[in-house]
């Protein structure tokens, strides 16, 4: 596969690790935008799972990338693992240290209410929410649709999906859209999502 080929499934150009490193070394800003679009969802989900928010994820992503750029600039450093793996691990470490600091700050203030607030942060993300709604709906899709969507989310282009699964390109595109529509429909009809939407309407009416 061409290292710079256009990824039809995500609308992004895909960069190989060596391409990313070369562009970052030459301070080409387009690769930062690519990395932001490509890997922020991964960092955000990791941080969600550990009690953070989208804003936290953006900050951590920037710091993580900064560390990796420093390593790229250091000619003596050799990248022995995938860029994505490094980015994930660095961001995970940074986020853990943020959590530690926040906990330490909460302990320093040491009032019962602060401690309670700290606990709430840790409980902030209920991953079952995603699992119940998104995965629950996903599992009810037909096999062909599930396979196509899984590969699509993994960044595989429709052409390659067609090759891998033995379908035509046209079928893959149509099936992908049809399955996505089915998934959205099932999510919308799921009791968890309905409950959340109803509660949102109630909360909004109270707040506004």
């Amino acid at each position, binding site marked *: 596969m061409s290292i710079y080929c256009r990824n039809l499934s995500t609308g992004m150009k895909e960069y190989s690790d060596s391409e990313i490193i070369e562009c970052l070394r030459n301070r080409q*800003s387009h690769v930062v935008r690519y990395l932001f679009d490509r890997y922020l969802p991964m960092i955000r989900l990791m941080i969600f799972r550990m009690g953070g928010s989208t804003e936290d994820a953006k900050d951590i992503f920037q710091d993580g990338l*900064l560390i990796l750029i420093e390593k790229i600039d250091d000619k003596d450093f050799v990248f022995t693992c995938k860029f994505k793996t490094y980015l994930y691990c660095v961001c995970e470490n940074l986020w853990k240290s943020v959590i530690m600091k926040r906990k330490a700050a909460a302990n320093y203030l040491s009032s019962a209410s602060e401690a309670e607030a700290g606990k709430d942060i840790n409980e902030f993300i209920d991953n079952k929410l995603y699992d119940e709604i998104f995965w629950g709906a996903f599992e009810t899709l037909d096999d062909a649709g599930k396979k196509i969507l899984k590969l699509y989310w993994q960044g595989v282009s429709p052409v390659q999906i067609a090759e891998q699964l033995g379908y035509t390109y046209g079928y893959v595109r149509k099936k992908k859209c049809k399955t996505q529509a089915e998934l959205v429909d099932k999510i919308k009809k799921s009791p968890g999502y309905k409950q959340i939407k109803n509660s949102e309407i109630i909360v909004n009416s109270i707040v506004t």
Partner: protein
Amino acid sequence: MGADQVHSKKLVQKIMIIKQLNGHTAKMPVKHVDKSPDDERLFNKDELALTEGVDSYMRGFFDIEDVLNDPQLKEAQAQAEMMAAAFEGRKENNIPGRSFIAEALSEVDNAHMPDESEVENISEITAGWVDEWQSRSSTEKPEKEIREFISGSIEPGISKPSERSPKPVRKANLRMVSAFLTLSAAAVAGIFLVIRGLSPADPDKLFASSYKPFNVISTTVRGDDQKPRTDYDSAIEKYKDGDYEGAASLFASISMRDTSLISSRFFLGLAETARGNYTGAVTQLSAIASRPGDYKKDALWYLGLAYLKLSDTKEASACFSSLAQSPGFYHGKAERILRRLR
């Protein structure tokens, strides 16, 4: 806290999660989202936002799965732990690269600016601004300053409108003269471009317009002041400082000691180019450019330039063709040189 309150609190948290998920993805630039004609036909605005939310979540999910199954994860974790710890110790410093990331991402934020059509009540909001402006007394208005700032920004050389001497101008004649001058300038520029396009450029001039010393980033890391500097560090510093003779000498001795050091040979080639020893540069750079590696493209570029300086346009074209065929930093630059060489 009662059970109902706990339940309500958790419910609000869940809403916040969904809002974050949908809210973020709603801001995603259209160009990064697969909105094929099929998608547009199938989904309304809310459904599209939900699809984007699911896509974002699922991509993150599979990326994490991929990372957690990476056989080199433990190695990366060990290195990352050290990197993060070192970073934490000097977080508040002005770390090089921070402004680069911030600027690159501010472009992302700008790309997230909503279309006018997406901003609700835009006309009411702007009408409010106009009312507010008009309701101020004339002494309150910083009108003159703002006008001067705007006109100064657009036409820096122009004098202030109020200071312009009112000259009687015959508008029709002025328009004709202006049109004639514009056409003449365009014709001259066109002829120049045609002549320039038809005749191959002088390799020497092409070299002069394309060559820039390689942008070297120091190998010295903050906090490393106490460490003894290696010959390589010193050579890099010499190259950075423009001492190409000194750099070439040091890189040559490093390369003599260990011929497998690609970076030293690469920089030796660059230093030779910079000091005008193009034959020496070709010797070093062609060895780097002929095999895959970190410096291959950079070496090809400087090798092509060295060939230009040696008036070997055939070899130079081969280098630039190779760069023009592959994407990356040199792609466009190589294409431009090739056009000029033809």
